[in-house]
């Protein structure tokens, strides 16, 4: 990254941190929701963008993380204990869900992950004894951070924002390590990768598991942000929305999910002045983007260079 880009990034980060000072509660809620989807999106970007594995079941992991946090916190466990548990559980489920990827690819894999999403959604909806069914689980308490209350929306945003930065640094470290290069080799040419000693079984499973763990963490934050969970936010539509975030921002680009989540979460809100037309305009904007910028918004600089 060039020096000018680093400065721009630092300025943007400071502006984002200061944003709650000039926003009402709903605006701060949306920014916090953006953080949650950035966490999940970064995981999906690792699975889809860096390792080249198709997944349209990511909302299932978000749901598993959210329900794990909600159920265990209702039983009296601390958020700080529940958070790693949600991550580890999703990591393990992600490992299992990675197995179909060893057999099938592309749209076949997409349907396998879709099936998993449908199954988890049905589980959340029908296993009322555990999940509360369609009534969901309410009254989830926000945690305290070293004695500081996170009940206020601004305080919780800063907490989620800091956590998002920490997760981004963790992802940066993973993709800068030889693992990142192995994921890219798996994505670009698995047959050649294997002939060069890349254990494609291990890296495929890891790509799913790490991506799922990120979504599990995001799910735990989602539960304490909304303080009420029910199955709807973890439906297939949410998986498609997260995939859209990754693709719109730039699949396989580090800042892709950040930009993509901003477009998918925030743009519809900014377009609300269009009243009944806002979702129509948003849909058309996405269609146009996919036609002219299939590499996502972050592919614009590459396009300029080529032009």
């Amino acid at each position, binding site marked *: 990254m060039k020096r000018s880009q680093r400065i721009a990034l630092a300025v943007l980060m400071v502006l984002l941190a200061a944003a709650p000072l000039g926003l009402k509660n709903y605006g701060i809620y949306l920014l916090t929701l953006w953080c949650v989807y950035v966490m999940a999106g970064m995981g999906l970007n690792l699975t889809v963008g860096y390792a080249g594995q198709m997944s349209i079941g990511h909302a299932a992991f978000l749901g598993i993380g959210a329900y794990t946090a909600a159920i265990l916190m209702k039983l009296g466990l601390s958020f700080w204990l529940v958070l790693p548990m949600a991550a580890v559980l999703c990591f393990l489920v992600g490992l299992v869900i990675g197995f179909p990827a060893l057999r099938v690819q592309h749209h076949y894999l997409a349907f396998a992950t879709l099936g998993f999403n449908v199954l988890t959604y049905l589980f959340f909806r029908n296993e009322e004894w555990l999940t509360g069914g369609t009534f969901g689980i309410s009254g989830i308490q926000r945690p305290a951070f070293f004695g500081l209350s996170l009940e206020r929306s601004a305080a919780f945003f800063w907490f989620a924002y800091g956590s998002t930065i920490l997760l981004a640094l963790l992802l940066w470290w*993973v993709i*800068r*390590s*030889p*693992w990142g*290069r*192995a994921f*890219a*080799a798996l*994505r*670009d*040419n698995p*047959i*050649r*990768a*294997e*002939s*060069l*000693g*890349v*254990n*494609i079984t*291990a890296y495929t499973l890891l790509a799913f598991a790490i991506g799922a763990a990120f979504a599990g963490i995001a799910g735990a934050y989602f539960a304490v942000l909304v303080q009420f969970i029910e199955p709807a936010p973890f439906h297939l539509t949410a998986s498609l929305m997260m995939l859209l975030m990754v693709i719109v921002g730039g699949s*396989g680009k580090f800042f892709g999910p950040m930009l993509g989540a901003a477009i998918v979460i925030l743009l519809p809100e900014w377009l609300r002045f269009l009243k009944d037309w806002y979702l129509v305009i948003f849909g058309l904007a996405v269609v146009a983007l996919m036609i002219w910028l299939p590499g996502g918004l972050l592919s614009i600089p590459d396009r300029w260079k080529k032009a």
Partner: protein
Amino acid sequence: MTPFLEVKDCVKHYGAIRAVDGVSFAVGPGEIVGVIGPNGSGKTTLFNSILGQIKPTAGHMEFCGEDITGMSPLKLSRRGIGRTFQTLQVFGKLSLRDNLIAAAQEFKDSLAGRLFAAPDAGLGQQADEMIELFRLEHVAHLPAGSLSYGQQKLVDIAMAFMARPRLVLLDEPCAGVNPALVDELRELLSKLNQSQGGSFIVIEHNMEFIMRLCPRVICMVEGKVLAEGKPEEVQSNRAVLEAYLGN
């Protein structure tokens, strides 16, 4: 000479088609063996059978005394067997330098150890030396997919040697390479053979290239070995002339 790689009665059938039909040969340590033959004679199928890309119908293969028949490409690579493919096989979005590092990093540390290793896995200098040897310095940091066909072919070949394999199977290394570079490529392969000491098996249609590079040549026709020997012997073999080289 003690065989390094020994292929005994390798057979690969696709239904009624006998792509490889009882091929046997051996390769010694440090030896370069050429494999020639018309299109469809079973050369690449033989390679893929040795290298675990396809399962041979019958036959037996040994590498350094170990049975490697049907072993996966991953296990073979761990035993020091490398390859190039007939078609280009680079990691298009990675830079040329990263392609070379990716080609050897998995032989360093454990899986967990690689997560904590330096970003270049300690292979940066070795990659730079390979880039210099192949004279690709000016494109080292470009995505491999953006390079010309000839440059990608050189990257493809260089990748096969990054992990210093003991045996390398090269499938048509000259295909698509500018004729002016063919001699240079031959010299590079000779240098690598001397410096790394590995054995090579080379499939190639460029007869001048193969006759000058390989002290021993095998000619395959219709899945069988038609002739084997020194290049000049094979070149003047009547059956080879009739079936492949012509008069």
